[in-house]
């Protein structure tokens, strides 16, 4: 005991985010990549940082309904993210397919293929909701460390 739990608590203050676009219409991506970073909703306050490489990521933000074409790439990318990782599904598409539901080209719900920890519904979700989802993911991540 003593030192090690402390370090884990410190470690969870540095969640690095990685976005996977699983066939999203880009609405959610704009909310994640741009709106959540603007001065009003600065996600960097939580120590978050968007990283370019999946190997640096701690929290994965997946948007889109998982189209058939992109499935293999998404699964490969997901495997490349080192453990421990937490998955946040952003938008309504990963849950049900959203406006693309019942299409022959989508495989939603996404949790048939990837374990989803937090769902942030909305079309697109508001930046506050995305940040709340990330905060929830940080709590889950702490338990996994």
């Amino acid at each position: 005991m003593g030192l090690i739990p402390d370090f884990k608590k410190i470690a969870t203050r540095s969640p690095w985010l990685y976005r996977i676009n699983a066939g999203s219409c880009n609405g959610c991506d704009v909310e994640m990549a741009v709106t959540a970073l603007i001065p009003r909703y600065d996600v960097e306050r939580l120590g978050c940082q968007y990283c370019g490489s999946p190997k640096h990521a701690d929290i994965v933000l997946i948007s889109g309904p998982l189209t058939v074409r992109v499935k293999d790439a998404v699964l490969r990318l997901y495997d490349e993210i080192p453990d421990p990782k937490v998955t946040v599904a952003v938008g309504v598409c990963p849950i049900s397919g959203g406006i693309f539901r019942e299409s022959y080209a989508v495989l939603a719900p996404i949790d048939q293929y990837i374990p989803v920890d937090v769902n942030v519904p909305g079309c697109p979700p508001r930046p506050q909701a995305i940040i709340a989802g990330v905060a929830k993911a940080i709590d889950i991540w702490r338990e996994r460390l």
Partner: protein
Amino acid sequence: MSNQLAILLAVLLFPGGVFALVLGLALKGVDRRVAARLQSRIGPPLAQPFFDVIKLGFKRTTVPEVASQNVFLYAPLVGVISVLLAVALVPITGVYTPAPAIGNLLVLLYLLMIPGIVLMIAGSASGSPYGAIGFSREMALMIAYEGPLVLIAAAVAIRTGVGMGGWVTFSLSDIIAYQREHGSFLFDPVMWPAVAAFCCFYPANLGIVPFDIPEAETEVLEGPLLEYSGPVLALFKVMSALKKVVVLSLGIAMFLPFAPDNWALGLIVWLIKLVVLMVIGVTALRVAIGRMRIDQAFTFFLKWPLLLAVASLAVVVVV
């Protein structure tokens, strides 16, 4: 024997090792915080880089199948050791003077090249095409900025050497002693081209936004660092933090080493200079402008900083 012990302490404790590591990470924290404030965001806590490094310690390290495993894993270690040595070479006015055996400007220049080379080796060892792109860009950038740096160092060395009655001196302690007697080179018009060239050089060496072309996140996904994860990536973060301390304190030693005689005051003044130099040359710069292309950066360096450095060398030799 005591001399060797002193060198070891300088490398591991102060000003290298623990001290430089804490300082470098804290500088990074200040940098991120100030950048956020300049963009009217709140920004991360000041200790954020410490959190990042500790976090990376908890992650798994993966080695790509195509990577050359030993080189991939040990390259960053070589980089960290070389910058640790480099920190111990740079004097802090009134606080720390390196042992005469190691306090040499030329040795420092060689050690400063190693982090860049390590990045190149790491990128090519990772087997990733992005790493290869990072490799070629880092090499082009190094070719562009190393020339001016050597000329700047030569100008400083000749100015000091001639001033002290010889021809050239590469001893950093002598350079500082000369400036403390005759005034800092920053206020010496003869040295202004060299100062300007150095101001162009250090953002490039630190890989800050207009010149972070080898690691461009949005283009080549952090290039050489793409395949790294976990503790090994933390070593790269530590390396760049230490390198920041070395390069900034080299600038202070070469151009503005004025300081009060008091030990504590000297350290505080040095820290203030370090932060000011970083906020102006790193934070404000990276907030203000976007990334250059590699060809733009290359021509920029072979045009202005090289011209300025050659001019300063010529002026110093003539005057």
